[in-house]
């Protein structure tokens, strides 16, 4: 892990936050490419976290239904897993590269 990333995660852990990175339509719906959310040190369920963000940003809701979600660079299967301080969540709308 690069030093910068390690440092960022350490800070996030100390401030008890999760970083969300939003791409493409998700970024446009929220108006930002990054969001930070404080979470308890015991963590929070991923679906709960995403639901609270969708409530603040209703345009994100339909996008989330078709998006893949990754935690720390790995796709998440099911959204019931727990997210802890220092985790990095990425929201991937359908890809359109090439």
């Amino acid at each position, binding site marked *: 892990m690069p030093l910068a990333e390690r440092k960022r995660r350490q800070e996030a852990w100390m401030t008890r936050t999760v970083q969300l990175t939003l791409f493409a339509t998700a970024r446009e719906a929220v108006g930002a490419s990054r969001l930070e959310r404080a979470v308890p040190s015991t963590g929070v369920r991923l679906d709960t976290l995403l639901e609270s963000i969708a409530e603040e940003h209703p345009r994100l809701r339909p996008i989330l239904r078709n998006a893949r979600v990754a935690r720390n*660079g790995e796709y998440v299967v099911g959204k019931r897993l727990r997210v802890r301080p220092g985790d990095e969540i990425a929201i991937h709308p359908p890809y359109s590269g090439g």
Partner: protein
Amino acid sequence: MRSPSTRRTAGGEPISSEVTDRPITLSQVARRLEDSGSGAVVLFVGRVRPEVQAGRRLTGLDYEADRRMALARLSDLERQARRRFGTRRIHVVHRIGRLRVGTASVIIGVAAAHRSMAFEAARFLIEELKREVPIWKTDRWARGPTGRRRRTRRRPRGARSPG
């Protein structure tokens, strides 16, 4: 992106693909395929195609990527292609950032013993790249609002930029 031969995935596998905000060229990819044992080389270049829609002219596409995951997925695809088609060399470069019409967005190169392997692997790589690699494009039009390019049912798949 500077020294691709030393980059590795989390699992330690060398990554030969690149996701870069600099211009990409055929010769940069062809160089990576040099291999005297390969009887066939297939190269694919995807470029931003001009388009006019409702009187508006497409001026370019903005590409973005989840770079770390894109490299990991590309490296997966390379491995799959090697296994399925028995290729000898693969190199994929994808450009991101603001690309004008006519600019190359992706170049895929495959070297293999026989031509069918090289053709099939190149086709596999571009199709899977479009489906499985976290890269996105957004339309930029000369006038009026911008419209995101989705994998949409409004247009046939691969309509504007087949790359």
